[in-house]
Protein backbone atom coordinates (compact mmCIF):
# COMPACT_ATOMS: atom_id res chain seq x y z
CA UNK A 1 0.00 0.00 0.00
CA UNK A 2 1.32 3.46 -0.87
CA UNK A 3 1.96 5.93 1.90
CA UNK A 4 -0.40 8.89 2.15
CA UNK A 5 0.86 11.78 0.03
CA UNK A 6 -0.67 14.41 2.24
CA UNK A 7 -1.67 14.24 5.83
CA UNK A 8 -5.27 15.09 5.24
CA UNK A 9 -6.43 13.77 8.60
CA UNK A 10 -9.41 11.47 8.50
CA UNK A 11 -10.11 9.97 5.99
CA UNK A 12 -6.53 9.12 4.99
CA UNK A 13 -6.08 9.64 1.27
CA UNK A 14 -3.87 7.21 -0.58
CA UNK A 15 -1.94 8.31 -3.68
CA UNK A 16 -3.71 5.78 -5.89
CA UNK A 17 -7.06 6.75 -4.51
CA UNK A 18 -6.42 10.44 -5.09
CA UNK A 19 -5.37 9.81 -8.67
CA UNK A 20 -8.57 7.92 -9.46
CA UNK A 21 -10.59 10.69 -7.83
CA UNK A 22 -8.79 13.73 -9.24
CA UNK A 23 -6.62 12.57 -12.15
CA UNK A 24 -2.84 12.59 -12.33
CA UNK A 25 -1.13 15.14 -10.11
CA UNK A 26 1.58 15.63 -12.72
CA UNK A 27 0.08 17.10 -15.87
CA UNK A 28 2.20 18.50 -18.69
CA UNK A 29 0.72 21.61 -20.24
CA UNK A 30 0.59 21.77 -24.05
CA UNK A 31 3.97 22.35 -25.70
CA UNK A 32 2.78 25.70 -27.05
CA UNK A 33 1.87 27.13 -23.62
CA UNK A 34 5.32 28.48 -22.71
CA UNK A 35 6.13 30.10 -26.09
CA UNK A 36 2.57 31.46 -26.45
CA UNK A 37 2.81 33.11 -23.03
CA UNK A 38 6.18 34.69 -23.82
CA UNK A 39 4.79 35.91 -27.15
CA UNK A 40 1.75 37.45 -25.44
CA UNK A 41 3.95 39.61 -23.19
CA UNK A 42 6.45 40.46 -25.95
CA UNK A 43 9.41 38.36 -24.75
CA UNK A 44 9.22 36.19 -27.89
CA UNK A 45 7.42 36.41 -31.24
CA UNK A 46 5.32 34.34 -33.60
CA UNK A 47 5.73 34.57 -37.37
CA UNK A 48 4.07 33.36 -40.55
CA UNK A 49 4.37 34.02 -44.28
CA UNK A 50 2.45 36.71 -46.16
CA UNK A 51 2.04 36.93 -49.95
CA UNK A 52 2.88 40.40 -51.33
CA UNK A 53 3.60 42.17 -54.63
CA UNK A 54 7.29 41.26 -54.22
CA UNK A 55 6.64 37.63 -53.31
CA UNK A 56 6.39 35.87 -49.98
CA UNK A 57 7.70 37.68 -46.90
CA UNK A 58 7.61 36.60 -43.26
CA UNK A 59 5.81 38.72 -40.69
CA UNK A 60 6.69 38.49 -36.97
CA UNK A 61 4.33 39.69 -34.24
CA UNK A 62 3.74 39.50 -30.50
CA UNK A 63 1.16 40.77 -28.02
CA UNK A 64 2.28 44.36 -28.66
CA UNK A 65 2.04 44.29 -32.45
CA UNK A 66 3.96 43.50 -35.63
CA UNK A 67 7.69 43.49 -34.90
CA UNK A 68 9.35 42.50 -38.19
CA UNK A 69 8.83 41.98 -41.92
CA UNK A 70 11.63 40.18 -43.78
CA UNK A 71 12.10 38.32 -47.05
CA UNK A 72 14.09 35.37 -45.65
CA UNK A 73 14.28 32.34 -47.99
CA UNK A 74 12.91 29.86 -45.42
CA UNK A 75 11.85 29.44 -41.78
CA UNK A 76 15.27 28.54 -40.30
CA UNK A 77 16.85 31.54 -42.06
CA UNK A 78 14.11 33.82 -40.73
CA UNK A 79 14.46 32.48 -37.17
CA UNK A 80 18.24 32.96 -37.22
CA UNK A 81 17.87 36.48 -38.64
CA UNK A 82 15.21 37.35 -36.07
CA UNK A 83 17.27 36.17 -33.12
CA UNK A 84 20.29 38.10 -34.39
CA UNK A 85 18.35 41.34 -34.86
CA UNK A 86 15.82 41.16 -32.01
CA UNK A 87 17.60 38.96 -29.40
CA UNK A 88 14.41 36.92 -28.93
CA UNK A 89 13.05 33.64 -30.27
CA UNK A 90 10.59 33.57 -33.19
CA UNK A 91 8.14 30.64 -33.28
CA UNK A 92 6.42 29.53 -36.46
CA UNK A 93 2.66 30.13 -36.37
CA UNK A 94 0.38 28.02 -38.54
CA UNK A 95 -0.70 31.20 -40.30
CA UNK A 96 -1.06 34.90 -39.63
CA UNK A 97 -4.10 35.64 -37.43
CA UNK A 98 -7.08 36.43 -39.68
CA UNK A 99 -7.70 39.97 -38.48
CA UNK A 100 -4.03 40.88 -38.53
CA UNK A 101 -3.57 39.52 -42.06
CA UNK A 102 -6.62 41.44 -43.24
CA UNK A 103 -5.45 44.67 -41.57
CA UNK A 104 -2.01 44.35 -43.20
CA UNK A 105 -3.52 43.60 -46.64
CA UNK A 106 -5.82 46.60 -46.41
CA UNK A 107 -2.87 48.78 -45.39
CA UNK A 108 -0.77 47.54 -48.31
CA UNK A 109 -3.69 48.24 -50.65
CA UNK A 110 -3.71 51.84 -49.50
CA UNK A 111 -6.39 51.96 -46.80
CA UNK A 112 -4.86 54.33 -44.25
CA UNK A 113 -7.87 54.13 -41.94
CA UNK A 114 -7.00 50.63 -40.77
CA UNK A 115 -4.54 50.51 -37.88
CA UNK A 116 -1.85 47.83 -37.75
CA UNK A 117 -0.42 47.64 -34.22
CA UNK A 118 3.39 47.84 -34.32
CA UNK A 119 5.99 46.78 -31.77
CA UNK A 120 8.78 49.33 -32.22
CA UNK A 121 10.48 48.88 -28.85
CA UNK A 122 14.22 49.50 -28.81
CA UNK A 123 14.21 52.22 -31.46
CA UNK A 124 14.92 55.92 -31.07
CA UNK A 125 12.27 58.62 -30.97
CA UNK A 126 13.78 60.07 -34.16
CA UNK A 127 13.38 56.75 -35.99
CA UNK A 128 9.79 56.44 -34.79
CA UNK A 129 9.02 59.99 -35.95
CA UNK A 130 10.44 59.23 -39.39
CA UNK A 131 8.39 56.03 -39.67
CA UNK A 132 5.22 57.72 -38.45
CA UNK A 133 5.66 60.37 -41.15
CA UNK A 134 6.29 57.71 -43.82
CA UNK A 135 2.98 56.11 -42.78
CA UNK A 136 1.22 59.28 -43.98
CA UNK A 137 2.42 58.94 -47.59
CA UNK A 138 -0.55 57.77 -49.65
CA UNK A 139 -0.54 54.57 -51.71
CA UNK A 140 0.76 55.26 -55.24
CA UNK A 141 2.67 58.42 -54.30
CA UNK A 142 6.30 59.11 -53.39
CA UNK A 143 8.04 61.78 -51.32
CA UNK A 144 11.72 62.75 -51.19
CA UNK A 145 13.83 62.03 -48.08
CA UNK A 146 14.09 65.77 -47.63
CA UNK A 147 10.30 66.05 -47.44
CA UNK A 148 10.24 63.78 -44.35
CA UNK A 149 13.15 65.71 -42.81
CA UNK A 150 11.31 69.01 -43.31
CA UNK A 151 7.94 67.66 -42.16
CA UNK A 152 9.35 66.42 -38.83
CA UNK A 153 11.08 69.75 -38.28
CA UNK A 154 14.62 68.50 -38.95
CA UNK A 155 15.26 69.93 -42.47
CA UNK A 156 19.00 69.26 -42.25
CA UNK A 157 18.66 65.61 -41.18
CA UNK A 158 18.11 64.24 -44.71
CA UNK A 159 20.86 61.67 -44.41
CA UNK A 160 19.65 60.57 -40.94
CA UNK A 161 16.16 60.15 -42.40
CA UNK A 162 17.61 57.82 -45.05
CA UNK A 163 19.38 55.81 -42.34
CA UNK A 164 16.23 55.58 -40.22
CA UNK A 165 14.23 54.34 -43.20
CA UNK A 166 16.95 51.77 -43.86
CA UNK A 167 16.41 50.52 -40.29
CA UNK A 168 12.64 50.25 -40.71
CA UNK A 169 11.86 46.85 -39.09
CA UNK A 170 8.43 46.63 -40.72
CA UNK A 171 8.89 47.50 -44.41
CA UNK A 172 5.72 47.39 -46.57
CA UNK A 173 3.60 48.25 -43.48
CA UNK A 174 5.67 51.39 -42.88
CA UNK A 175 5.96 52.23 -46.60
CA UNK A 176 9.60 53.30 -46.83
CA UNK A 177 9.43 52.20 -50.48
CA UNK A 178 7.44 55.41 -51.06
CA UNK A 179 10.40 57.58 -50.08
CA UNK A 180 12.80 58.40 -52.93
CA UNK A 181 15.93 60.47 -53.31
CA UNK A 182 15.54 64.21 -53.50
CA UNK A 183 17.02 64.21 -57.03
CA UNK A 184 14.09 62.03 -58.10
CA UNK A 185 15.97 58.74 -58.47
CA UNK A 186 14.36 55.73 -56.80
CA UNK A 187 17.13 55.09 -54.26
CA UNK A 188 17.95 52.20 -51.98
CA UNK A 189 15.58 49.68 -50.41
CA UNK A 190 16.19 47.43 -47.42
CA UNK A 191 13.78 44.65 -48.39
CA UNK A 192 15.62 42.98 -51.26
CA UNK A 193 17.12 46.07 -52.91
CA UNK A 194 15.97 48.69 -55.50
CA UNK A 195 14.43 46.05 -57.81
CA UNK A 196 11.80 45.36 -55.16
CA UNK A 197 11.28 49.07 -54.56
CA UNK A 198 10.53 49.61 -58.26
CA UNK A 199 8.26 46.56 -58.32
CA UNK A 200 6.31 47.85 -55.29
CA UNK A 201 5.89 51.31 -56.79
CA UNK A 202 4.79 49.76 -60.10
CA UNK A 203 2.28 47.59 -58.19
CA UNK A 204 0.84 50.82 -56.76
CA UNK A 205 0.30 52.23 -60.25
CA UNK A 206 3.45 54.38 -60.51
CA UNK A 207 5.90 54.35 -63.40
CA UNK A 208 9.39 54.36 -61.78
CA UNK A 209 11.15 54.89 -65.14
CA UNK A 210 8.89 57.82 -66.01
CA UNK A 211 9.52 59.34 -62.57
CA UNK A 212 13.26 59.09 -63.03
CA UNK A 213 13.25 60.55 -66.54
CA UNK A 214 11.12 63.45 -65.32
CA UNK A 215 13.66 64.03 -62.56
CA UNK A 216 16.57 63.78 -65.03
CA UNK A 217 14.88 66.51 -67.08
CA UNK A 218 15.14 68.65 -63.95
CA UNK A 219 11.41 68.67 -63.18
CA UNK A 220 10.72 68.58 -59.44
CA UNK A 221 7.20 70.02 -59.31
CA UNK A 222 4.15 70.18 -61.54
CA UNK A 223 1.73 73.09 -61.56
CA UNK A 224 -1.69 73.66 -63.10
CA UNK A 225 -2.28 76.92 -64.98
CA UNK A 226 -5.99 76.75 -64.13
CA UNK A 227 -5.69 76.41 -60.35
CA UNK A 228 -2.22 78.03 -60.17
CA UNK A 229 -1.19 75.38 -57.60
CA UNK A 230 1.98 73.30 -57.82
CA UNK A 231 2.55 69.79 -56.41
CA UNK A 232 5.10 67.02 -56.08
CA UNK A 233 4.82 65.02 -59.34
CA UNK A 234 3.11 61.97 -57.80
CA UNK A 235 0.61 63.91 -55.67
CA UNK A 236 -2.89 62.79 -56.64
CA UNK A 237 -3.72 66.43 -57.38
CA UNK A 238 -0.80 66.70 -59.84
CA UNK A 239 -1.86 63.53 -61.60
CA UNK A 240 -5.25 65.04 -62.40
CA UNK A 241 -3.75 68.00 -64.29
CA UNK A 242 -4.54 67.73 -68.02
CA UNK A 243 -1.52 67.74 -70.34
CA UNK A 244 -2.30 71.13 -71.83
CA UNK A 245 -2.56 72.76 -68.39
CA UNK A 246 0.55 71.12 -66.88
CA UNK A 247 3.43 73.51 -66.07
CA UNK A 248 6.78 72.01 -64.92
CA UNK A 249 8.93 73.74 -62.30
CA UNK A 250 12.57 73.05 -61.45
CA UNK A 251 12.20 74.37 -57.90
CA UNK A 252 9.54 75.57 -55.48
CA UNK A 253 11.02 79.08 -55.85
CA UNK A 254 10.32 78.96 -59.60
CA UNK A 255 6.70 78.10 -58.89
CA UNK A 256 6.28 80.88 -56.37
CA UNK A 257 7.95 83.35 -58.76
CA UNK A 258 5.44 82.37 -61.45
CA UNK A 259 2.61 83.24 -59.05
CA UNK A 260 1.71 79.67 -58.02
CA UNK A 261 1.11 78.45 -54.48
CA UNK A 262 2.10 75.09 -52.99
CA UNK A 263 -0.45 72.27 -52.73
CA UNK A 264 -1.75 71.89 -49.18
CA UNK A 265 -1.83 68.10 -49.41
CA UNK A 266 1.67 67.19 -50.64
CA UNK A 267 3.17 70.40 -49.16
CA UNK A 268 6.04 70.76 -51.66
CA UNK A 269 7.17 74.25 -50.60
CA UNK A 270 8.85 72.95 -47.49
CA UNK A 271 10.50 70.06 -49.32
CA UNK A 272 14.23 70.42 -49.73
Amino acid sequence: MNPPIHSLGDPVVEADDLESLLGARRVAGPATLVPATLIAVGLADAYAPLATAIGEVRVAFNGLGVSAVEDAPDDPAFEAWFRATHARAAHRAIELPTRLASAIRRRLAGDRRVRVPLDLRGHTDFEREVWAKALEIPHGEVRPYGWIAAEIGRPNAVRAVGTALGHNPVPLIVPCHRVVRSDGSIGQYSLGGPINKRALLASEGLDPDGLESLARAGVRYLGSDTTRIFCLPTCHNARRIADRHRVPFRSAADGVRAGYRACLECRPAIAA
Partner: protein
Amino acid sequence: MVVERNGRPARRVINAEMDEPELTARLAIDLDGAFEALVRAHSDRLYAIALRLTGSPADAEDLVQDALVRAYRALGSWEAARIRDVALRPWLASIVVNLARNRARARAVRPATTSLAHELTHPRLAEPAGRERETPHGRLDRREAGEAWAARFLALPERYRGPLVLRCVDGLSYDETADVLGRPTGTVKAQVHRGLALLRAALEAETAPPSRTQEALR
Protein backbone atom coordinates in the same frame (compact mmCIF):
# COMPACT_ATOMS: atom_id res chain seq x y z
CA MET B 1 17.51 33.27 -20.78
CA VAL B 2 16.54 29.71 -21.59
CA VAL B 3 16.44 29.43 -25.34
CA GLU B 4 14.76 27.02 -27.65
CA ARG B 5 16.84 25.35 -30.30
CA ASN B 6 15.33 23.34 -33.12
CA GLY B 7 11.97 23.72 -31.42
CA ARG B 8 13.25 21.65 -28.50
CA PRO B 9 13.18 23.60 -25.29
CA ALA B 10 16.34 23.65 -23.21
CA ARG B 11 14.21 22.40 -20.35
CA ARG B 12 15.20 22.35 -16.76
CA VAL B 13 18.33 24.33 -17.31
CA ILE B 14 16.49 26.24 -14.69
CA ASN B 15 15.01 23.75 -12.32
CA ALA B 16 11.24 23.71 -12.15
CA GLU B 17 11.60 23.35 -8.41
CA MET B 18 13.87 26.37 -8.31
CA ASP B 19 13.78 27.96 -4.92
CA GLU B 20 11.14 30.63 -4.80
CA PRO B 21 13.37 33.19 -3.09
CA GLU B 22 15.95 32.79 -5.85
CA LEU B 23 13.34 33.23 -8.56
CA THR B 24 11.62 36.20 -6.94
CA ALA B 25 15.03 37.81 -6.34
CA ARG B 26 15.84 37.47 -10.03
CA LEU B 27 12.40 38.76 -11.03
CA ALA B 28 12.92 41.81 -8.82
CA ILE B 29 16.22 42.63 -10.57
CA ASP B 30 15.36 41.73 -14.18
CA LEU B 31 11.71 40.90 -14.83
CA ASP B 32 12.13 40.40 -18.58
CA GLY B 33 15.19 38.20 -18.13
CA ALA B 34 13.68 36.01 -15.41
CA PHE B 35 10.04 35.80 -16.47
CA GLU B 36 10.65 32.84 -18.77
CA ALA B 37 11.97 30.88 -15.76
CA LEU B 38 8.74 31.68 -13.88
CA VAL B 39 6.64 30.48 -16.84
CA ARG B 40 8.64 27.26 -17.17
CA ALA B 41 8.52 26.58 -13.44
CA HIS B 42 4.79 27.20 -12.99
CA SER B 43 2.94 26.64 -16.29
CA ASP B 44 2.41 22.88 -15.83
CA ARG B 45 1.03 23.15 -12.30
CA LEU B 46 -1.19 26.08 -13.23
CA TYR B 47 -2.40 24.11 -16.23
CA ALA B 48 -3.25 21.17 -13.93
CA ILE B 49 -5.33 23.54 -11.78
CA ALA B 50 -7.03 25.19 -14.76
CA LEU B 51 -7.79 21.85 -16.38
CA ARG B 52 -9.76 20.78 -13.29
CA LEU B 53 -11.57 24.08 -12.99
CA THR B 54 -12.58 24.35 -16.66
CA GLY B 55 -12.72 20.69 -17.76
CA SER B 56 -11.39 21.71 -21.18
CA PRO B 57 -7.73 21.52 -22.33
CA ALA B 58 -8.25 24.42 -24.75
CA ASP B 59 -9.88 26.65 -22.12
CA ALA B 60 -7.22 25.66 -19.59
CA GLU B 61 -4.39 26.64 -21.94
CA ASP B 62 -6.05 29.95 -22.73
CA LEU B 63 -6.71 30.65 -19.08
CA VAL B 64 -3.19 29.86 -17.87
CA GLN B 65 -1.70 32.02 -20.59
CA ASP B 66 -3.92 34.96 -19.63
CA ALA B 67 -3.14 34.41 -15.94
CA LEU B 68 0.61 34.53 -16.63
CA VAL B 69 0.20 37.67 -18.74
CA ARG B 70 -1.60 39.29 -15.81
CA ALA B 71 1.17 38.15 -13.49
CA TYR B 72 3.78 39.71 -15.81
CA ARG B 73 1.91 43.02 -15.92
CA ALA B 74 1.41 43.03 -12.16
CA LEU B 75 5.09 42.30 -11.48
CA GLY B 76 6.03 45.04 -13.96
CA SER B 77 4.06 47.57 -11.91
CA TRP B 78 5.46 46.51 -8.54
CA GLU B 79 8.49 47.76 -6.68
CA ALA B 80 11.43 45.37 -6.26
CA ALA B 81 10.76 44.78 -2.54
CA ARG B 82 7.20 43.69 -3.23
CA ILE B 83 8.33 41.26 -5.95
CA ARG B 84 10.93 39.73 -3.63
CA ASP B 85 8.27 39.15 -0.96
CA VAL B 86 5.53 37.62 -3.09
CA ALA B 87 4.66 33.97 -2.42
CA LEU B 88 4.58 32.91 -6.05
CA ARG B 89 2.81 29.56 -5.70
CA PRO B 90 -0.37 30.74 -3.97
CA TRP B 91 -0.35 34.11 -5.76
CA LEU B 92 -0.25 32.58 -9.25
CA ALA B 93 -2.85 29.99 -8.23
CA SER B 94 -5.15 32.77 -7.04
CA ILE B 95 -4.92 34.53 -10.44
CA VAL B 96 -5.94 31.28 -12.18
CA VAL B 97 -8.79 30.62 -9.73
CA ASN B 98 -10.16 34.16 -10.04
CA LEU B 99 -9.91 34.17 -13.83
CA ALA B 100 -11.68 30.81 -14.03
CA ARG B 101 -14.50 32.10 -11.85
CA ASN B 102 -14.86 35.38 -13.76
CA ARG B 103 -14.89 33.60 -17.10
CA ALA B 104 -17.47 31.07 -16.02
CA ARG B 105 -19.67 34.02 -15.03
CA ALA B 106 -18.96 36.06 -18.18
CA ARG B 107 -19.59 33.09 -20.43
CA ALA B 108 -23.04 32.68 -18.94
CA VAL B 109 -23.84 36.24 -20.07
CA ARG B 110 -22.17 36.48 -23.49
CA PRO B 111 -19.96 34.27 -25.64
CA ALA B 112 -16.26 35.06 -26.04
CA THR B 113 -15.36 37.33 -28.97
CA THR B 114 -12.08 37.51 -30.84
CA SER B 115 -10.42 40.87 -31.38
CA LEU B 116 -7.17 41.79 -33.08
CA ALA B 117 -5.61 42.18 -29.62
CA HIS B 118 -6.79 38.68 -28.68
CA GLU B 119 -5.34 37.28 -31.90
CA LEU B 120 -1.96 38.88 -31.27
CA THR B 121 -1.76 37.41 -27.77
CA HIS B 122 -3.08 33.95 -28.72
CA PRO B 123 -1.12 32.90 -31.82
CA ARG B 124 -1.85 29.46 -33.21
CA LEU B 125 1.66 28.07 -33.09
CA ALA B 126 2.81 25.16 -35.19
CA GLU B 127 3.54 22.18 -32.93
CA PRO B 128 7.25 21.51 -33.21
CA ALA B 129 7.86 18.01 -34.57
CA GLY B 130 9.45 15.34 -32.38
CA ARG B 131 8.87 17.22 -29.19
CA GLU B 132 9.41 14.85 -26.29
CA ARG B 133 6.77 16.21 -23.95
CA GLU B 134 4.08 15.81 -26.59
CA THR B 135 4.85 12.13 -27.10
CA PRO B 136 3.39 10.13 -25.58
CA HIS B 137 3.10 11.58 -22.12
CA GLY B 138 1.57 14.95 -22.92
CA ARG B 139 -1.07 13.44 -25.11
CA LEU B 140 -1.98 10.91 -22.46
CA ASP B 141 -2.43 13.68 -19.93
CA ARG B 142 -4.63 15.64 -22.28
CA ARG B 143 -6.80 12.67 -23.08
CA GLU B 144 -7.25 12.05 -19.40
CA ALA B 145 -9.13 15.32 -19.14
CA GLY B 146 -11.97 13.65 -20.98
CA GLU B 147 -11.95 10.59 -18.78
CA ALA B 148 -14.25 9.52 -16.03
CA TRP B 149 -12.67 11.40 -13.14
CA ALA B 150 -13.16 14.68 -14.97
CA ALA B 151 -16.89 14.04 -15.40
CA ARG B 152 -17.23 13.13 -11.73
CA PHE B 153 -15.18 16.13 -10.65
CA LEU B 154 -17.16 18.59 -12.75
CA ALA B 155 -20.38 17.11 -11.35
CA LEU B 156 -19.33 18.28 -7.87
CA PRO B 157 -20.87 21.48 -6.51
CA GLU B 158 -18.56 24.37 -7.46
CA ARG B 159 -17.55 25.20 -3.88
CA TYR B 160 -15.70 21.89 -3.46
CA ARG B 161 -13.64 22.07 -6.63
CA GLY B 162 -11.25 24.89 -5.69
CA PRO B 163 -10.29 23.42 -2.31
CA LEU B 164 -9.77 19.94 -3.80
CA VAL B 165 -7.60 21.14 -6.68
CA LEU B 166 -5.46 23.53 -4.67
CA ARG B 167 -4.97 21.18 -1.71
CA CYS B 168 -4.93 17.69 -3.26
CA VAL B 169 -3.67 18.30 -6.81
CA ASP B 170 -1.44 21.35 -6.41
CA GLY B 171 -0.39 20.57 -2.86
CA LEU B 172 -0.86 24.02 -1.32
CA SER B 173 -1.24 23.98 2.47
CA TYR B 174 -4.70 24.40 3.98
CA ASP B 175 -3.77 27.93 5.03
CA GLU B 176 -2.56 28.85 1.53
CA THR B 177 -5.65 27.26 -0.02
CA ALA B 178 -7.83 29.25 2.37
CA ASP B 179 -5.98 32.47 1.45
CA VAL B 180 -6.32 31.87 -2.28
CA LEU B 181 -10.03 31.17 -2.00
CA GLY B 182 -10.72 33.81 0.63
CA ARG B 183 -12.42 31.30 2.91
CA PRO B 184 -11.65 30.32 6.52
CA THR B 185 -9.16 27.45 6.92
CA GLY B 186 -11.72 25.36 8.81
CA THR B 187 -14.22 25.72 5.99
CA VAL B 188 -11.61 24.69 3.42
CA LYS B 189 -10.67 21.59 5.46
CA ALA B 190 -14.28 20.56 5.70
CA GLN B 191 -14.82 21.17 1.99
CA VAL B 192 -11.79 19.05 1.05
CA HIS B 193 -13.03 16.16 3.20
CA ARG B 194 -16.60 16.46 2.03
CA GLY B 195 -15.52 16.81 -1.62
CA LEU B 196 -13.34 13.69 -1.44
CA ALA B 197 -16.17 11.78 0.20
CA LEU B 198 -18.56 12.81 -2.57
CA LEU B 199 -16.07 11.81 -5.26
CA ARG B 200 -15.46 8.46 -3.57
CA ALA B 201 -19.17 7.82 -3.32
CA ALA B 202 -19.62 8.65 -7.02
CA LEU B 203 -16.74 6.33 -7.93
CA GLU B 204 -18.17 3.50 -5.80
CA ALA B 205 -21.61 3.94 -7.29
CA GLU B 206 -20.09 3.42 -10.74
CA THR B 207 -17.96 0.42 -9.82
CA ALA B 208 -20.46 -1.30 -7.49
CA PRO B 209 -21.92 -4.58 -8.79
CA PRO B 210 -25.46 -4.25 -10.15
CA SER B 211 -28.07 -4.53 -7.44
CA ARG B 212 -30.66 -7.34 -7.33
CA THR B 213 -33.33 -5.06 -8.66
CA GLN B 214 -31.21 -4.20 -11.70
CA GLU B 215 -30.44 -7.91 -12.21
CA ALA B 216 -34.12 -8.71 -12.04
CA LEU B 217 -34.90 -6.12 -14.67
CA ARG B 218 -32.55 -7.66 -17.23
